[in-house]
């Protein structure tokens, strides 16, 4: 009986968190993408689709600011002809779209959406699977999405998709390394791989990028200033990690400065050139789901996840009506707000930074981010270990760090020298 109840709770969590919380975010981010892009470019964007009351004799339509537009798009994609060209390798052609969506949605299960909900005094975590290997699981699964793209490129049996698929493979492999290495400092700092614990830690001790409070008080109280030195010292490697991680997430999700696998100007549509109807929509959904997951990971690791900060989280967690503690739902709303804000940031980047050339992309990934992430791990370890090892060891470590960094910069400079131009 207990097992059945547990299974039922898990099932409810799976259905509610994926289909009520995450999947609606996909059309919402599509809507935001279109509206925000339009505003940036002095346009209006989709603002019409809504309730056609005028058809029934009313004076005005009600348009919801065009919020229904993604639904209309979805219906359109369902009704379109699903055309399979004769020259494709059918089995893989059919498999590829699913392979891009599924990994993105599977990673949802480790994201902590909020603090605990209390039902009849029983705490329920707002996580589907409270794994102790959170970030590793996300990296392992989300990098499977590249198979979808590569298979799509290959099985389409046409040149542009193939180039797109190959580009995406190389890009994903390059940035996976920077992605993995850049979170090492964060994990070192928390000494924990469980995302729920990481967020709880941040709720108590200040977000990683905004350590304005700790368990001794907020920035306004004296006790905070007595204990904040370590936090602010770690802020430096945290910011470096944040920059590298965010950029790598952009590359992993094939977003704008790194969208070479599907860049329209060179490759028609890239890996999904030969796809139509719902199969194309699956790629589209996979891309946006990856974006949602990527931004929720950044928010969870660096920006405090579901926490509001300033010591308000304990009070929010304690909110209840009768025996139903709904604080978790408030935290869920906070988390969603942060994720949507980060998605808006994604769009801002899209219309600000022009697309990289392919060699620049590879150079940024392998030469700069890889090295920077490695050095950052060293720096973070030094900051964390300094209080234990005393001044002497710290200074030796610092000297070593400077030497290593200088050597790397020198190697970079030397290897950058261009070959002399051949004179004939």
């Amino acid at each position, binding site marked *: 009986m207990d097992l059945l109840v547990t299974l039922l709770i898990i099932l409810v969590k799976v259905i509610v968190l994926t289909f009520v919380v995450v999947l609606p975010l996909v059309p919402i981010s599509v809507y935001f993408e279109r509206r925000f892009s339009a*505003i*940036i470019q*002095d346009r*209006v964007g989709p603002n019409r689709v809504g309730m056609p009351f005028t058809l029934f004799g009313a004076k005005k339509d009600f348009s919801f600011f065009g919020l229904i537009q993604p639904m209309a798009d979805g219906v359109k994609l369902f009704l379109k002809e699903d055309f399979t060209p004769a020259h494709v390798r059918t089995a893989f052609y059919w498999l590829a779209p699913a392979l891009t969506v599924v990994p993105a949605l599977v990673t949802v299960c480790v994201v902590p959406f909020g603090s605990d909900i209390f039902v009849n005094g029983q705490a329920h975590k707002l996580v589907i699977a409270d794994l102790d290997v959170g970030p590793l699981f996300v990296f392992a699964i989300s990098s499977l999405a590249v198979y979808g793209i590569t298979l799509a490129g290959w099985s389409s049996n046409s040149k542009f998709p193939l180039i797109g698929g190959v580009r995406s493979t190389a890009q994903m492999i390059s940035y996976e390394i920077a992605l993995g290495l850049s979170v090492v400092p964060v994990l070192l700092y928390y000494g924990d791989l469980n995302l729920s614990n990481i967020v709880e830690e941040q709720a108590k001790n200040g977000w990683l990028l905004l350590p304005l409070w700790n368990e001794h008080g907020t920035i306004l109280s004296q006790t905070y200033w007595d204990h904040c030195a370590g936090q602010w010292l770690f802020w430096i490697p945290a910011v470096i990690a944040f920059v590298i991680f965010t950029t790598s997430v952009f590359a992993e999700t094939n977003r704008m400065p790194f969208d070479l696998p599907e860049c329209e100007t060179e490759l028609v549509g890239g890996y999904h050139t030969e796809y139509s109807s719902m199969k194309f929509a699956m790629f589209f959904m996979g891309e946006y789901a990856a974006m949602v997951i990527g931004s929720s990971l950044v928010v969870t690791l660096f920006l405090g996840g579901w926490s509001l900060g300033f010591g308000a989280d304990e009070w929010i967690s304690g909110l209840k009506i009768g025996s139903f503690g709904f604080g978790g739902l408030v935290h869920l709303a906070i988390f969603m707000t942060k994720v949507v804000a980060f998605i808006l940031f994604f769009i*801002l980047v899209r*219309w600000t*930074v022009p697309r990289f050339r392919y060699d620049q992309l590879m150079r940024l990934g392998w030469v700069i981010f890889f090295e920077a992430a490695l050095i950052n791990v060293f720096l973070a370890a030094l900051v964390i270990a300094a209080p234990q090892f005393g001044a002497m060891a710290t200074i030796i470590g610092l000297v070593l760090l400077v030497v290593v960094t200088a050597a790397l910069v020198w190697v970079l400079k030397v290897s950058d020298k261009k070959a002399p131009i051949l004179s004939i």
Partner: protein
Amino acid sequence: MAVVKVTRPKLAAGEKMYLGAIFKGFIITMKHAIASLRNKSRGAKDMESSGLGVTMQYPEQKWDEHLPEYYRGAPALVTDEQGRERCVSCQLCEFICPPKAIRITPSEIPSDDPWAKVEKRPLEFDIDMIRCIYCGMCEEVCPEQAIFLRKDYAITGLKRADMMHDKEKLYEIGGVRVGLVNKWNELK
């Protein structure tokens, strides 16, 4: 002419970092977005913007008052101040029409008609608005100044047949045009 040697500017360390430039870019993009939201985009006033960016939103706001004098919309036939149809079915417009949108069936004016001296008028005058490219050559070539491009731009229909403007429709759009050609006038 003096030779100017242009050297490639050396980037400072900060510029090589690239991050500063990206942040500057974010600020510029955000400024632009906020200006667009506040209806302060450059040219928003001149373009009669609807309040977002520089876009005029169609069914609520229309071009009509903002059309320039020289705007070329749907071609139409006109009558003169005495209600005579100006067209004498010389068929010059039919021959000049690049997409061959105009088709005229000429007919004679019967001798008991007050305008018998004009001799000819069109029996049928059809313009296929699907073919028409609004080039204005018919207007330019017409010796009687009978066909004009009006400012109507929303030519719609549910069938191909709806898009065929016949004589009646063309006079309805065109209306009366006073003056210009007086050679058939009694007053002259």
